[in-house]
């Protein structure tokens, strides 16, 4: 599937310029901090000199890097055991969104939807977007409205062979401001955009096929200790609360 868009060329043109003031501030702070550390390092001797200078240089590098956006494309295909029209209708109804995604919200005032990527260091990375084209039961295309976060893409609903339901194929392009922000976002949440889409589709499939979202959040355990706690972060646990409360999803069962 191809998305007909020239976002990629726009992205490469705008790559060298930061677009928002937060990003600029962080960039400046990193550069200043980096220079300070390096200066402190140069005033010391031995290993402190080398390590502090290296740390300073790294921060400076990140500061400069900060002026570049993190952009790319992602494509994910997932088979859901429901008819294409059914999957289309389920996704198109924003009342269903909380059941499979915490990142999507409708904005009734602006007739657009809001995609929130996360809140790294307390700053919410989100954008407004609108549906640009669609055909019932076939596809939905969207594009972000001018703002910090740029993304556009299309989700197709193809009938899966052998009566296995629907192949839901998502292809998107994105540009997230602040390279280090975006990377830490990916690190903290353990999810690059492609993985986020995959996990969202996984929950959508679970909700549409079984009517519930299996979870292990909230179950008992023995003493985790330091190692257990560290591993939980590495294994991306505890996971975000299940999108819907028990008993809310009403789609299961055949």
């Amino acid at each position: 599937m191809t998305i007909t868009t020239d976002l990629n060329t726009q992205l490469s043109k705008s790559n060298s310029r930061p677009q928002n003031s937060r990003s600029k501030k962080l960039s400046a702070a990193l550069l200043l901090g980096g220079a300070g550390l390096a200066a402190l390092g140069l005033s010391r001797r031995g290993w402190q000199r080398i390590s502090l200078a290296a740390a300073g240089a790294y921060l400076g590098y990140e500061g400069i890097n900060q002026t570049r956006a993190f952009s790319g494309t992602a494509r994910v295909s997932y088979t859901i055991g429901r008819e294409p029209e059914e999957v289309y209708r389920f996704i198109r109804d924003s009342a269903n969104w909380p059941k499979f995604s915490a990142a999507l919200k409708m904005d009734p005032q602006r007739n657009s939807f809001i995609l929130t990527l996360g809140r790294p260091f307390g700053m919410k990375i989100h954008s407004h977007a609108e549906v640009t084209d669609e055909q019932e039961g076939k596809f939905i295309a969207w594009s972000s409205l001018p703002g910090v976060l740029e993304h556009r893409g299309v989700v197709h609903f193809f009938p899966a062979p052998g009566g296995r339901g629907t192949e839901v194929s998502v292809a998107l392009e994105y540009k997230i401001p602040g390279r280090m922000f975006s990377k830490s976002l990916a690190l903290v949440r353990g999810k690059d955009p492609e993985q986020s889409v995959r996990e969202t589709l996984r929950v959508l499939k679970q909700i549409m096929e079984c009517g519930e979202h299996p979870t292990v959040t909230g179950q008992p355990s023995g003493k985790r200790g330091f190692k257990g706690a560290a591993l939980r972060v590495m294994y991306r646990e505890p996971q975000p609360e299940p999108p819907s409360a028990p008993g809310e999803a009403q789609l299961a069962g055949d």
Partner: protein
Amino acid sequence: MKALCWQGKNKLSVESVDDPKILSSGDAILKITRTAICGSDLHLYDGYIPTMEPGDILGHEFMGEVVETGPKVENLKVGDRVVVPFTISCGHCFFCKTQQWSLCDNSNPNAWMAEKLYGFSGSGLFGYSHMLGGYAGGQAQYVRVPFADVGPLKVPQDLNDEQVLFLSDIFPTGYMAAENCDIKIGDVVAVWGCGPVGQFAIRSAFMLGAEKVIAIDRVHERLSMARQAKADIINYAEVDDVVEELKWMTGGRGPDACIDAVGMEAHANTLPGWYDKTKQSLRVAFDRPTVLRQAIQACRKGGTVSIPGVYGGFLDKIPFGAGFAKALTFKMGQTHVHKYLRPLLERIQNGEIDPAFVITHRLPLEEAPNAYQFFRDKQQECIKVVLDPWAQAA
């Protein structure tokens, strides 16, 4: 409640933890009446299964009484006595609908981890690493059972716990291993490993029409239990070469089917055995595939190698050329437990088999850490340990 928790390699403790709660609409909570230690739990004990976290509650063979059900549960009610498959299945996906229950698409909340390692994820399992769901296990006083309408099997009152407990794993696992051999009347089946799964594989192979079953182990009590099932035996510690011995015992043909009921922690006092042991100790390999190599080498032309033993990673020096040259069929995977629950319950009810034969130790939960050790080290003539989570330690 009391629960057996994994705290690291060779480190288990019985701890006081919170009681489980209903977390999803299809959950049920069981009060566990009997639970068992599985041979595959020893892989966790020995630290060979990745993505375990200190504090994880172990145990995937258990049964009990329903004490609470989620709002969506229809098939179970409080007071029902059930045995629970160790694989967790949603009952609605392509795999569940085609009886491939252990490949369920929807039951592993941590599927991304298994996808990184294996390309795709199988079903979630109770008490068996975070990569396979991170579900708290059943070597405890209570357990939460997800998709409770799908898995648990109600047990007839005239059967006691010990007769049905092993429907949770080892009986279906041994049975599927034999079924995967596509046994024809007159077939000879060789079974490596006479632990509990091997014992059920031996008996299932006979049930499915095998004329001769050859059981391979080195532990005397396990071999004699196999002999009670009328299997011929090979004590591999007393023969020069298992493959040659099998040829000798099968008129030079080789067994029609070979079952590897050992898996990743095979023992062998041979050069390949020590090679595998060294690699695993150095953590450059998950698995010691010594038995698998023998099974492939020994199997007759056009035969089947059936693998219920657990493997985790990239297996070294597998004679794939032999597999190709002899046109072997390979069958493997976690057991589709749900598929076998009712047919095997029927066999128990008909008196064809009483699975309790395999039990050698009955202990309170407090004794579990100790029991893991002597089960692993094959001391005290241990073959199968059943735990009572409510019994007081002596």
